[in-house]
């Protein structure tokens, strides 16, 4: 489109190419949809890649049960808008059936439990490629991801044995029961995503814009207060004007104090921000190699 920036146009073309490659090379692919802005951009790009045909793969949401309600409302609207099938992998169901044990204590989170559910859903539905919205600029280990990332039958990633990726030729060949994770947004930065949302006039869940919310501060980061969150004695909920920079589930999404009402205001806020997007993600802070350990095990 004529009013689009040069580099955004190039990134969009690259991503659409990768998405079409998935539809061509795999028999049963799926888009991992979290309700976050990156997966929303993925949904729009998938729509563009096959228009006027419908998107040829379902969406999969791994539901921790600890959601911001806005995410779920938005998800269901988008599913209707794009006329795609939604599969849900419920962490709560796995806990109820005894397959998973919930973490306890102050920092309890269902983030780690998602991996088990994701792998079980892939296995059950025999998905052979799972498209995700991860970007290389997010985190130091993601910086080493390929577009087509091979996973063994246990869903494991072997960073030392990645397939070389040359030019724009992707090798999605695999043995039975192995699968691929595919990351069409690999080369986008947080700013590119926001610029795209602006230029395409994409409507996001209200969580991304400033709103009043009951929050509490832990280790310097603001979190949403929900009754299932266990507070420490020095923590108490207060009302603040905040917005999300990323959306995970309630327990691991840090909030930013912000007055940004519009995408333009968010862009200028990010332009001067001195903290990375995932700086508010508690799940990354568990150890220096938290992301690597989770990814090897089969995390998103």
């Amino acid at each position: 489109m004529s009013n689009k920036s040069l580099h955004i146009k190039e990134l969009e073309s690259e991503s659409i190419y990768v998405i079409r490659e998935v539809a061509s090379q795999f028999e049963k692919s799926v888009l991992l949809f979290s309700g976050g802005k990156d997966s929303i951009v993925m949904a729009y790009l998938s729509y563009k890649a096959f228009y006027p045909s419908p998107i040829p793969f379902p969406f999969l949401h791994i539901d921790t049960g600890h959601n911001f309600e806005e995410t779920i409302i938005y998800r269901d609207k988008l599913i209707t808008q794009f006329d795609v099938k939604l599969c849900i992998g419920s962490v709560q169901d796995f806990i109820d059936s005894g397959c998973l044990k919930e973490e306890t204590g102050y920092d309890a989170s269902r983030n780690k439990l998602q991996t088990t559910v994701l792998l079980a859903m892939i296995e059950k539905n025999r998905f052979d490629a799972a498209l995700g919205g991860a970007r290389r600029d997010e985190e130091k280990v993601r910086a080493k991801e390929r577009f087509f990332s091979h996973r063994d039958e246990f869903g494991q990633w072997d960073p030392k044995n990645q397939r070389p990726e040359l030019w724009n030729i992707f090798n999605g060949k695999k043995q039975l029961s192995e699968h691929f994770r595919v990351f069409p947004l690999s080369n986008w930065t947080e700013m590119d995503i926001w610029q795209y949302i602006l230029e395409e006039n994409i409507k996001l869940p209200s969580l991304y814009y400033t709103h009043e919310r009951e929050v509490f501060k832990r280790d310097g980061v603001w979190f949403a207060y929900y009754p299932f969150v266990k507070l420490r004695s020095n923590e108490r909920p207060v009302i603040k004007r905040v917005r999300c920079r990323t959306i995970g589930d309630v327990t691991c999404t840090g909030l930013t104090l912000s007055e940004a009402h519009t995408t333009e205001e968010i862009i200028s806020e990010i332009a001067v921000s001195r903290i990375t997007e995932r700086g508010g993600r508690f799940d990354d802070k568990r150890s220096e190699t938290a992301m690597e350990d989770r990814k090897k095990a089969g995390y998103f």
Partner: protein
Amino acid sequence: MTTVNYSNVELLRFITAGSVDDGKSTLIGRLLYDSKSVFEDQLESMKVISERHGNHKVNLALLTDGLRSEREQGITIDVAYRYFSTPKRKFVIADTPGHIEYTRNMVTGASTAEAAIILIDARNGIMEQTKRHSYIISLLQIPNVIFAVNKMDLVDFSEKKFEKITDEYSIFIQKLNIKNVYYLPISAFHGDNVVEFSKKMTWYKGPSLLSILETIPLKNNISSLPARFPIQYVIRPQTDNFHDYRAYAGQIASGTYNVGDSVTIVPSYTQSIIKAIDNVMESLNEASAPQSVAIRLVDNVDASRGDMIVKSTELPIVDSNISLMVCWFNHRPLCIGIKYIIRHTTDEVFGIVTHVNYKVNINTMENVICDEHVKMNDIAHVFMKTSKPLKYDIYVKNRLTGGLIIIDGNTFETVGAGMIMK
């Protein structure tokens, strides 16, 4: 619609190459740090780690060395991609390792790069790896090379030392096909000539590394090359509203297409005319590389994934006997006479290497004949026959239609890359 002006910029993809300990990760850390692309929380976490490892100065290499084993060994073992931007350009860096066993990662990074930074340790001068990397850069046709002599602080910022190394290098690359070379002395650790000019090397009058990166010409000529459109996916909705809609989706590899162009589908040589170029709801009159579009033709033709739509006036070569330079990636050697899977553009065929013509000795740039054992990291000129003809251009003319990958038919690993010569 309001567009944020400062961010309407071009994208430059470049790689960094060098031997072990030449300071690549430090240099990238420096570029990110000095261009203010490092965030407070990253800096904080680097400080903590540096101190744990006994360093009091923040180790900038920690920004790129992401995997646990890299941090333990203090080396880079896989390609890490980094992003930064200045008001003039956005950059994608592929940080590629210097170790000999990871040459395949350098080839991977090089295949999409438009510029390469070769780092040299001023104390050691040109090493075997420098030559190997330069050869790969020329083999993969990266048009711009920045030859950066690093660690100048450890040789007293000596102009003589710098000249000795660059003279040696300029003689060496006469044997290679490299178009533009820039030479500069830097200290990545202290930041001299990376973003800011060095006060200690006033004898150097050229631009800083960042300003070279901001101004080197981008390969815009890809849209003026002969038009190549590999069909990737056929869009056929078969819904009531779009009953007869049939479009060929793909990314334009090179050149420009217009509505009304006479085109030929290869390899069937069916002729037609472009009826429309679709980009979602929008119909374009003209589209060029590297846009992803969907092309509709006037006639109902038989065309599918792997075929190529080209302008009738500029046909590619169509042949099932090719010769190519191969870079081998796998622990198991190349086998003559066995069937490999070949991926070329969106096409897939079988290929058999019939003969190894020569291997390249990268250190001497000599061709070694009578040695048919192509092992990991070897580069060789081979002959191949394919089960179906390929539609291609030679690699030096077109990187996307002249490059292919070789896949093992049993393990499905990518075992080699090929650059078509003839």
